[in-house]
């Protein structure tokens, strides 16, 4: 497994749990009809910052442990795989923007709109990492 792949796995495994925990809790609240009341921009920001810090610490630790194995600078094959991930991620982000516009048009509250934007961003970023990992695993 290349250094780049290890970094991506680390970012994925460290990044998923906090966001999965928060958004599954929000989803469950929405399912039982108390979702909007339970949503808070402050809590969302705390989860985003906390998740990013956890991810950053994990990536730094793993990169220090494997620092002799390579670099995150992509070669041409990795760059092509990375571009594919960014393209798919971009389309997801655009979809999130359209949903956000729809939510604003429907007059949904700011707290819901902020959650939609954050969710779209996280899904787009995780998709980029998964697509890149898939490309690196199969070789192209």
């Amino acid at each position: 497994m290349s250094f780049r792949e290890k970094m991506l796995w680390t970012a994925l495994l460290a990044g998923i749990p906090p966001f999965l925990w928060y958004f599954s809790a929000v989803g469950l609240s929405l399912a039982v009809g108390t979702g909007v009341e339970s949503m808070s921009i402050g809590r969302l920001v705390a989860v985003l910052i906390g998740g990013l810090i956890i991810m950053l610490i994990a990536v730094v630790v793993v990169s220090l442990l494997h620092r002799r194995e390579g670099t995150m600078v992509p070669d041409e094959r990795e760059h092509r795989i990375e571009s594919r991930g960014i393209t798919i991620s971009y389309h997801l982000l655009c979809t999130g923007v359209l949903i956000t516009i729809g939510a604003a048009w429907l007059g949904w509250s700011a707290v819901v709109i902020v959650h939609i934007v954050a969710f779209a961003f996280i899904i787009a970023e995780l998709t980029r990492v998964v697509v890149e990992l898939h490309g690196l695993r199969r070789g192209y």
Partner: protein
Amino acid sequence: MARAPFSNDIKTLRFLAGEMTQGDLGDEVGVTRQTIAAIEQGKYSPSLEVAFRIAHVFGKPLEEVFRWQVDQDDALL
């Protein structure tokens, strides 16, 4: 993705060059070991620059390292 429409003799040339590893070749060419492995297996078509660099490492002309598959060429026409 279809396999690359050309074959290569990189594995043989590495063996003949003192059992050079994929990692060593990757270091000389400026790509990762995994990229050399993908090129060898025909999963990834390298850029012209990397193809020339690989040929240069072995001191061979490009056509002795990479060979166009005639049958696939015909299929494209």
